[in-house]
């Protein structure tokens, strides 16, 4: 048993915000204070904040695209190494920030083996991956046939063969549009596959996913990312779901209006108003941070647009039977008016939206920068003065074309904990974490309470995973392996010939090797029930 004595406990789910108390753990779980404990390890947590381990709901931390990015950037390895360390180093860095669970935001089923191989390097962290489905051949065929039962089975099968935890859409249909040479810039634009539109695809997939009772609803990267005046299309996309549950990721990139000359300005107020009216949905922000970043996305249209406008080097790959991926290095600059507006827009969204259990802090690593920036971003949320100082340092467009300067809100500690622990846990359907109640997983982070919030969140005094101290004073002290979490909803095995037939038309590997079922990876997954 371990007890953290006299800590300031933060457990937003249970309405506890800084009350001094003890936290007991036995084995891998939090337990009630025993009446007569036999033997236990006592840790003095006086002056410490004690909170549930942080959960990363959306980052690109593993998989083939990052591997290619490392190769692409091998020659520019100065700042890149820090941005794109190895999977093992990424795992360690997350742990050292107090994270105990991390999800990779997009994995192509064809390359799921690589993602799992990377995730298994991440030591004590629990982790999982989201399976890309929006351009998968069997999915498109099932949607085209207008057969919801077939579609449900197809999604379940894809989750199983890829070892996925949730279903992910990236500008759904972009692969079809790309191949047919069409631009995909509106919900009702044709995808180049019969009369299929993005709206129809989105709705069919969200409904089918909802029918599977997955812990996490469909996870959506919407269309028109990064384009001036895209906020209305984003709000239309939210409405297109017709009340079905979903998570929308990195919404900062969809929160732009346009000035008279068509340049982007913040539309955070409009988007915050829109999402406030959708209680069944959750969101993450995709905050940008100044410095090196790397666009890694299946949204080929965005990456091509960035490549053409910025004339940057890029990699783009098409995957058989699926969509593809684009990779493009960039740097967010303080003196760039658009980057400054992006920075302000993300913070404005977070500060305007009142509910930290529905809108989470992410940087969409590595797209918006490194997750190592979280402590700094938290300091901007908690201290108006800190963000005003930053506003004064960057291009004046940020102050001029966003509402950030006028916002007085400062996040409280319990709100920061809610947006990084209990909120993501609930959104992800992780019922065993995100709280410090007895019976929950003993995933705990402790910070020394101090005035410098950035310093405080950058250097946890202690991180506990599954009841074991894994980080002590910034050092990894245990390498007990974590688990890769996955779901395995049932599907009708009579569908296998359908999957095989469609795969045979598009995919040139043995259908039975699509994807990880033939490996031992599948045996090591931690299966979360669908209820």
């Amino acid at each position, binding site marked *: 048993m371990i007890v953290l004595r006299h800590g300031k406990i933060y457990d937003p789910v249970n309405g506890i915000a800084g009350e001094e108390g003890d936290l007991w753990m036995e084995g891998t779980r939090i337990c009630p204070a025993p009446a007569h404990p036999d033997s236990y390890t006592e840790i003095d947590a006086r002056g410490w904040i004690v909170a549930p381990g942080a959960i990363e709901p959306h980052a690109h931390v593993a998989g*083939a695209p990052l*591997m*290619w990015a*490392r*190769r*692409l*950037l*091998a*020659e*520019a*390895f100065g700042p890149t*190494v820090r941005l*794109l*360390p*190895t*999977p*093992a*180093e990424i795992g360690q860095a997350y742990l050292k920030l107090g994270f105990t669970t991390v999800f990779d935001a997009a994995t192509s089923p*064809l*390359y799921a*083996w*690589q993602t799992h*191989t*990377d995730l298994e*390097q991440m030591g004590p962290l629990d982790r999982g991956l989201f399976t890309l489905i929006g351009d998968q051949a069997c999915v498109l065929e099932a949607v085209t046939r207008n057969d919801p039962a077939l579609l449900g089975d197809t999604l379940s099968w894809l989750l199983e063969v890829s070892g996925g935890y949730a279903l992910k859409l990236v500008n759904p249909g972009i692969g079809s549009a*790309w*191949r047919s*040479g069409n631009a995909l810039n509106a919900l009702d634009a044709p995808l180049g596959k019969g009369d299929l539109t993005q709206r129809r695809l989105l709705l069919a997939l969200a409904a089918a996913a909802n029918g599977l009772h997955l812990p996490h609803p469909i996870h959506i990267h919407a269309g028109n990312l990064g384009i001036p005046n895209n906020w209305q299309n984003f709000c239309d996309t939210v409405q297109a779901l017709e009340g079905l549950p979903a998570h929308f990721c990195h919404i900062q990139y969809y929160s732009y209006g346009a000035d008279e000359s068509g340049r982007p300005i913040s539309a955070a107020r409009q988007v915050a108003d829109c999402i406030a009216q959708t209680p069944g949905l959750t969101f993450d922000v995709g905050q940008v941070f100044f410095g090196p970043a790397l666009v890694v996305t299946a949204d080929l249209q965005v990456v091509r647009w960035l*490549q053409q406008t910025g004339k*940057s*080097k*890029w*990699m*783009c*790959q*098409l*995957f*058989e*039977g699926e969509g*593809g991926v684009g990779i*493009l290095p960039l740097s967010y600059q303080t003196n760039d008016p658009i980057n400054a507006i992006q920075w302000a827009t993300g913070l404005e969204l977070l500060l305007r939206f009142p509910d930290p259990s529905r809108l989470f802090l992410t940087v969409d690593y590595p797209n918006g920068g490194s997750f190592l920036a979280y402590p700094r971003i938290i300091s901007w949320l908690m201290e108006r003065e800190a963000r005003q100082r930053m506003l004064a340092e960057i291009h004046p467009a940020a102050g001029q074309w966003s509402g950030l300067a006028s916002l007085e809100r400062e996040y409280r500690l319990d709100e920061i904990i809610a947006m990084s622990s209990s909120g993501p846990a609930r959104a992800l359907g992780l019922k065993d974490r995100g709280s410090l109640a007895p019976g929950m997983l003993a995933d705990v982070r402790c910070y020394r309470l101090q005035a410098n919030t950035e310093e405080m969140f950058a250097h946890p005094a202690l991180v506990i995973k599954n009841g074991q101290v894994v980080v002590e004073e910034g050092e990894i002290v245990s390498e007990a392996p974590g688990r890769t979490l996955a779901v395995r909803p049932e599907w009708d095995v009579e569908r296998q010939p359908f999957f095989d037939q469609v795969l045979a038309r*598009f*995919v*040139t*590997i*043995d259908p039975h*090797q699509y994807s990880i079922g*033939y*490996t031992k990876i599948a045996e090591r997954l931690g299966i979360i029930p669908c209820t």
Partner: protein
Amino acid sequence: MTLTQAVSCPFCACLCQDLHVQLDEEAVSLTPPCEKALAGFAGLATLPRHPEIRGSQATYAQVIAAAAERLRRSRMPLVLLGDGLTAAAAQQAIHMARRLHACVDTPFSASEEALLHLWSEQGSQWLTLGEIHQSPDTLLFIGMHPATDYPRLWSRFIAGNAKIRGRLAAINSRLPYPKAQTPGTLHLEEQDELGLLTTLLAALKGKVPAPPEDIHNLAQLCLAAGSGLVLFDLARLAWPRPTLAAIQRLAEFLNKRAEAHWYTLPFTPGSGALTAMNALTTVSGFPASVRFTTNGPEYSPAEWSAETLLQSGEADLVVIVGGAPWLSPPWQEALRPYPALVLASQPPATSAEVYLPVSMAGIDSAGTLLRLDGIPISLSPLELFQSRPAAESVLQDILREVGP
């Protein structure tokens, strides 16, 4: 006894999974046919099984002890990740290098470096093999010809591809071209690839007022493409860096000029180059030319590539893990002064102080390799073949013997 079995073929980077092999005491046959695979399967009967120390047969325990002793005495070992390595074997070899503070490289790092440099400078668009059926309507081969180099690639993806319909061109393929199969195909072999690409690009840009007919026709073919694919073999380009740059400039120009999608697809030699580089990237963050120090991995092609280390004499022991069909005369010459520990499924192509035959994925062990487009393929062992130890387990035994 005759064995007929579905196989995943480990004998080239296509890793085809639709072959059936028939083996008996007399002969080997293959359906569908593939000369390259047939040669590989036909050679299985003579695969080595006995470990050797300086050419003399030895027991497994003796060679493990000898390898460990040699590694303990080494000041600077160089681990060369060869051909046919599974992901697990490559990872274990890299783990050993990290433990021993050794350098790790692949024999393909020079061409990989050229490719990386190009990607870093200009980027790249590529696609998986199956997309050849879906996307490109025009193919351009440079320095290679798949009908002879990759026979199944030709028969599976190109011959009879309705979308392409003979819209093919080959630049200096150096090999007999099956003109009868693809009438009308352009075949240019008068100059080297670099010269011809340069002329082609100039013609496309209108800088050659009256280009030769072949160049003119090729330029027209390229301009008319809705989507094109340039295939090239990294190991065969005479001038890798400038030729790769020319290929990329061509693809980039066509993407802009014709508003089409042009992709490139580099071929790497053998079936393990990409697997090894991926494994090294996973562990170190870098694909080749890495030295593990107490401060972590260092990447420097100028210092830690195999070529540099062998030329400078800085390495004092070479550990070759995986097959070595790449061991061309210059490589053999460069390796000659060095003591070598060789773990390979085939007989060593250089004199080895210690040689340990290890299993080959798809023949006498299972394992995952990456196809040339990076798709992971799992290979199962053939029945009938008695397994030899897998490279990863041998490496573990050696490391255990080396001690802390």
